[in-house]
């Protein structure tokens, strides 16, 4: 069902702190959607000194047809893995858009309507805090109805170095299953034009 | 000796007008003769020799000789040579530069060519002055000397080309003067045959611009000065510091085996491609 979903500019922003692997997360997600699901995807990111240490962000525009303007205009989904990023980018979210946060780091959400999972704590449980981004990717795969877990796992294996693939698959599954358990109905809430 | 001039003539471009543009008594012609003789003695084919030059009097040398010749931009000859050598390591790439060309505007390229040990040969024709633009001081104008831009004497210290190149890691460094043309022949041959970067500093007097302003009445005076002051390295080392001041050490300052960059790169490429 999900792979045939017609999309017209579905915009996602992944945000957090530098070092959380936001860009890798965006790249894996973008690649899975572009190459395996067959969508058109543009992925842009902020570069330079601001991308080191401080806030980090990565934008994806996903569409069934050709994408003209490559940047985001109005976000359908904002993923924030830090309080600062959440505060900074919340204003770019559509009124009917969704917010997904890492509850281990985002204590004060600007709205009560949000999805939240403790990605960092979950990654620690998996055994490697650096897999926070992949835990989030697992959760995203559940929340976004047109993303297939098999394709994302495949893309993950292609992009990540061989020796860390196993633990990341574990992290992915942990995020995916927890999201499915806590928010079973979330994928149904989207309204696609 | 009988065939020397004839031999040189065989390498000159017959379509070019001679005599060449250099002033009477300019050493650059001697260097060209020496270069031709050494290439002939090594048995290199004209097609395999690429002569790259920068800007200035020395930059005018290649056009007269029947090799693959490239007259580049000021100071950048070594960068072109690096590209040529890496693109086709079979070619013998010889770079002719002046002192301002190699050490002032091109100083950055020289120190890096020496550091990366690319297999080209640099001949630096040191005449202590900017000849073509009319006698302005260069980075090798000796302290106290006069030029049109140091009318009251040069205040800055000069570069020792050979020393600079040596400390930058060149695997072959030598110095000679145009008064020792035979020695220059063999030095150039040795530099060209040496793997990796080789530099020969050649003192080539500029009477027109440097000599006249610095108490050398004729070009012959400059040649006599070169003859008098050039001292083989072994003898130079035995001189007292005061005498060393006035003498010019000549000879080979550095010579060690060191694989050229282009060969290292080819080796890496082979191993990546799984060829042995």
């Amino acid at each position, binding site marked *: 069902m999900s792979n045939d979903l017609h999309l017209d500019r579905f915009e996602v922003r992944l945000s957090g702190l530098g070092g959380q692997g936001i860009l890798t997360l965006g790249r894996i997600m973008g690649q899975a959607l572009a190459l395996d699901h067959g969508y058109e995807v543009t992925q842009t990111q902020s570069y330079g000194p601001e991308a080191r240490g401080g806030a980090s962000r990565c934008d994806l525009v996903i569409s069934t047809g050709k994408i003209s303007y490559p940047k985001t205009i109005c976000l359908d989904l904002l993923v924030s893995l830090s309080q600062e990023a959440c505060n900074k980018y919340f204003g770019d979210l559509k009124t009917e858009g969704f917010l997904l946060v890492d509850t281990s780091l985002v204590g004060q959400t600007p709205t009560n309507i949000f999805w939240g999972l403790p990605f960092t704590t979950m990654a620690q449980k998996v055994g490697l805090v650096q897999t926070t981004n992949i835990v989030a990717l697992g959760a995203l795969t559940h929340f976004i109805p047109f993303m297939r877990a098999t394709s994302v796992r495949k893309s993950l294996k292609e992009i990540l170095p061989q020796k860390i693939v196993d633990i990341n698959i574990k992290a992915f599954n942990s995020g995916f299953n927890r999201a499915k358990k806590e928010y079973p109905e979330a994928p149904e809430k989207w309204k696609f034009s | *000796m*009988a*065939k*020397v*001039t*004839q031999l*040189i*003539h065989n390498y*000159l471009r017959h379509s070019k007008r*001679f*005599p*060449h543009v*250099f*002033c*009477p*008594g*300019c*050493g*650059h*012609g*001697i260097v060209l*003769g*020496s270069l031709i*003789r050494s290439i002939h003695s090594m048995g290199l084919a004209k097609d395999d020799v690429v002569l790259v030059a920068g800007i200035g009097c020395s930059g005018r040398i290649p056009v007269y000789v029947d090799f693959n010749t490239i007259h580049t931009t000021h100071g950048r000859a070594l960068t072109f040579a690096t590209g040529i050598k890496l693109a086709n390591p079979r070619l013998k790439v010889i770079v002719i530069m002046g002192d301002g060309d190699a050490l002032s505007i091109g100083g950055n390229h020289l120190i890096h060519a020496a550091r990366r040990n690319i297999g080209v040969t640099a001949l630096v024709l040191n005449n202590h002055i900017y000849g073509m633009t009319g006698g302005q001081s260069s980075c090798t104008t000796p302290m106290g000397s006069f030029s049109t831009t140091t009318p009251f004497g040069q205040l800055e210290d000069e570069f020792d080309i050979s020393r600079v190149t040596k400390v930058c890691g060149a695997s072959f460094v030598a110095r000679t003067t*145009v*008064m020792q*043309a*035979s020695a220059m*022949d063999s030095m150039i041959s040795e530099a060209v045959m040496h793997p990796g970067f080789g530099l020969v500093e050649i003192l080539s007097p500029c009477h027109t611009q440097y000599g006249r302003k610095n108490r050398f009445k*004729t*070009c*012959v005076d400059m*040649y*006599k000065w070169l003859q008098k002051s050039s001292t083989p390295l072994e003898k130079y080392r035995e001189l007292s510091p005061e005498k060393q001041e006035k003498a010019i050490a000549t000879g080979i300052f550095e010579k060690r085996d060191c694989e050229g960059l282009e060969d290292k790169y080819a080796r890496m490429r082979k191993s990546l491609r799984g060829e042995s």
Partner: protein
Amino acid sequence: MTRKKGESKVKVFLDWCKGCGICAAFCPNKVLSVDKQGKVRVDREDDCINCGFCEIHCPDFAIMVYPKDERTPFEANIDDVAPATREELHRIRNSNST
């Protein structure tokens, strides 16, 4: 290679010579000099010992030293294209006058 006097010829290409005087100044046997026209003149060809200095130090490739009994390319065909030698000219002139 000969080092004896009287065995060499010295040829100067005057069109190429700029008269810098290096050859004359350093010639061990004073074979060469610079004339008033600013060109090198061969004064004492017979004193040349073919040391080779002038040939390799001429910046303009304008001097050639070669064995006396050898013809060089640039004069090789002179005899073929010039029908009359000096003696022949003399003979012709004499025969005309009589």
